[in-house]
């Protein structure tokens, strides 16, 4: 029954799509299914080779990224003292927009698939790390007591209890990671590869080849979703009762005083500079492209360079901030509205969860075609990128309103609005803030990618230009600045979160 209905839905969608395309023949931003099919059939060999290339890089990156995430999560569990350093560094690396690390990796690796694989790995490790740490910790104290009674330490507890108990959490992370790896590989290809779907997409966009752009977007999104579905199948087999995870960062050092926090931040900054300088010296990287902290400092001390950089950043933020806020507001707003019609919410949930996983970047070219290369198009890309994860997280949050509280409200016969306002929206806030934090790097990634692909302004373009003109000082400065902005914005959201949750959900901060 459901299969027939889904099939009918697909057929109807294709028919409507074709009808729209027929109304506007030769449109520069719209291709009908028959045009797309013609393109795919006509270029099947090329598309197949590109798809194999991109998928291969995504798979290798997926394995590496998750391996690193696994190792880091085990390290945090085995040596709890390492947690704040590991978490801070992991977050910092996660905050560097992929499109910013792309050109640098390109210079470091040279031609070949190194950058694509690294970016795919970078795109996945953080979500897996977070959900795995939550999973490894989410065991009952009785189990750790049991291990202590028999004189077993952290390693035995990890091997005998924690790893097995964390499987459902691991798979929730892996499932989100699968399409993300595909996204990372494609962004790596945007930044100057020779082969792959990303390269073809860039070419199609620049040549205004509408049919090719549509075909590539469809293929990329489908392959990414195939990864999502495959991991989902394995997950269903192995862990049928998946937990609901709000992917959020591990608990911060909120119990520390202000000076202690300042010292902590300073220590992390010092460590980053040390790792940056040290790794470049250790690998003896050519100072022509591998810029050290001192080079950047010197470069930015010229006001002209600083001005160029800040102007570009200003242009980028002018698009990123409205897109970010719009995405969050639309996601949370729709979740609240859906809550008033529970059957609709139940029906939409699976679709929303699936769409959350679509790497929006693969469809960014279509959004550019639809909304133009200006403000609207860029804001739309940023907003759409953030919209689905927020919607899903908020719906899950709204559902987590304790049933006793709902029962209590209903026993007084209050209206649905009142219940929503007084009980359900406060219960949703932790989820909203968790996604607001994770959306910061996502927004910067989306805006810089849109600039790179389409708009021709902002820091994304500055990076593209400097990468092609070998102005490596400016390229590194862009990366450092984007990273600082991401970390700053992340910290700001976390600060608001702490203030708000202290009132509405104090148990979340315990």
């Amino acid at each position, binding site marked *: 029954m459901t299969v027939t209905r889904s099939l009918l839905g697909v057929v109807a969608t294709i028919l409507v799509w074709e009808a729209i395309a027929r109304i506007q023949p030769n449109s520069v931003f719209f291709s009908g299914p028959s045009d797309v099919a013609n393109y795919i059939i006509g270029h099947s060999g090329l598309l197949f080779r590109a798809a194999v290339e991109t998928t291969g890089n995504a798979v290798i990156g997926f394995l590496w990224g998750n391996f690193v995430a696994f190792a880091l999560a085990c390290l945090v569990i085995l040596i709890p003292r390492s947690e704040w350093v590991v978490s801070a560094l992991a977050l910092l690396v996660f905050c560097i927009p992929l499109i910013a690390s792309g050109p640098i990796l390109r210079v470091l690796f040279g031609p070949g698939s190194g950058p694509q694989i690294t970016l795919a790995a970078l795109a996945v490790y953080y979500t897996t790390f977070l959900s795995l740490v939550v999973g490894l910790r989410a065991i*009952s104290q*009785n*189990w750790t*007591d*049991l*291990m*202590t*009674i*028999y*004189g*077993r330490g952290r390693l*035995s507890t990890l091997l*005998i*209890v924690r790893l*097995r*108990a964390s499987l459902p959490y691991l798979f929730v992370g892996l499932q989100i990671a699968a399409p993300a790896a595909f996204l990372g590989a494609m962004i790596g290809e945007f930044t100057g590869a020779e082969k792959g779907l990303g390269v073809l997409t860039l070419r199609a966009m620049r040549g205004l080849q509408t049919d090719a752009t549509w075909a590539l977007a469809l293929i990329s999104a489908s392959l990414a979703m195939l990864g999502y579905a495959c991991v989902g199948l394995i997950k269903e087999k192995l862990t049928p009762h998946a937990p609901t995870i709000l992917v959020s960062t591990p608990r911060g050092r909120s119990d520390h005083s202000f000076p202690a926090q300042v010292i902590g931040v300073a220590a992390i900054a010092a460590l980053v500079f040390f790792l940056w300088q040290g790794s470049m010296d250790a690998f003896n990287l050519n100072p022509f492209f591998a810029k050290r902290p001192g080079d950047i400092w010197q470069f930015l001390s010229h006001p002209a360079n600083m001005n160029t950089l800040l102007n570009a950043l200003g242009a980028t933020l002018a698009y990123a901030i409205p897109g970010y806020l719009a995405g969050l507001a639309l996601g949370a707003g729709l979740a609240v509205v859906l809550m008033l019609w529970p059957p609709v919410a139940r029906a939409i949930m699976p679709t929303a969860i699936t769409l959350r996983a679509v790497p929006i970047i693969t469809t960014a070219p279509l959004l550019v075609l639809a909304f133009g290369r200006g403000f609207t198009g860029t804001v739309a890309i940023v907003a759409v990128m953030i919209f689905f994860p927020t919607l899903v997280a908020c719906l899950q949050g709204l559902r987590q309103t304790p049933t006793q509280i709902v029962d209590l409200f209903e026993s007084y016969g209050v209206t649905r609005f009142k219940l929503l306002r007084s009980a359900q929206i406060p219960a949703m806030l932790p989820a909203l803030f968790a996604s607001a934090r994770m959306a910061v790097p996502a927004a910067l990634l989306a805006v810089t990618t849109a600039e790179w692909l389409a708009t021709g302004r902002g820091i994304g373009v500055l990076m593209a230009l400097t990468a092609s003109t070998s102005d490596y000082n400016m390229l590194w400065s862009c990366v450092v600045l984007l990273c600082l902005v991401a970390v700053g914005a992340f910290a700001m959201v976390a600060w608001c979160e702490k203030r708000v949750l202290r009132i509405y959900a104090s148990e979340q901060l315990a």
Partner: protein
Amino acid sequence: MTAADISCENVRKSFDRTDAVAEFSTVFQAGRTTALVGPSGCGKSTILRMIAGLDAPDAGLIRLGPETPKQVARRGGLSMAFQDPSLLPWRTVRSNIALGAELARKPAGGVDDLIHLVGLDGFADHRPAELSGGMRQRAAIARSLISEPEFLLLDEPFGAVDAITRRRLNQDLPPLWRRRKTTTILVTHSVEEAVLLSDRVIVLSPRPARILSDIQIDIEGLRTAAETNSAKFQALKSKVLAALEEAA
């Protein structure tokens, strides 16, 4: 295996400035079973957790024989059954019971005998989710016995067990402990169980826990459910109840 005493000397413990245990001193004799009874929240479980090495006392000394709890734990000489069965959901009953030996680095012989003893025949290959609460609890008790520990700590392990099985366990377990010369400490809410299972009952005061009364249970020979009707049993039970009432 030689039995050893558990000695507590001036043991103190507080949580967030609330005293849980104050100046607790006693010797739990080797190879015997001692019950700790007292009002809810009086610190019985805290004492048990300190003896198990799960919590460290703020002051005072705890020794199991000549060793610290941690030292005994490391050589697998200790086991405990909790109020909650805490079975690993992905392991079968058999494998959950064998885990006790595996963790203590001892051979897992006699799993089937223990399965029979706790009345789980036919459920060896079931997973915890397929069992009732009481059955899970019985598997957890078997897990605590499989490693043949010198020191056995029982934290209200019979709470979720149905009345009939509880009665059978009350009858079958003490002979096993005596045969193995296990030094056993039992925390329980049931006065009848305390008198039936132990050689000595310690009645504790409300928090912070102090020893209010120390009653020897000098019933010789095999204790059966029928024993609970005897005048001597009733007298001992009244004595413990009176001490408890005084505590409250």
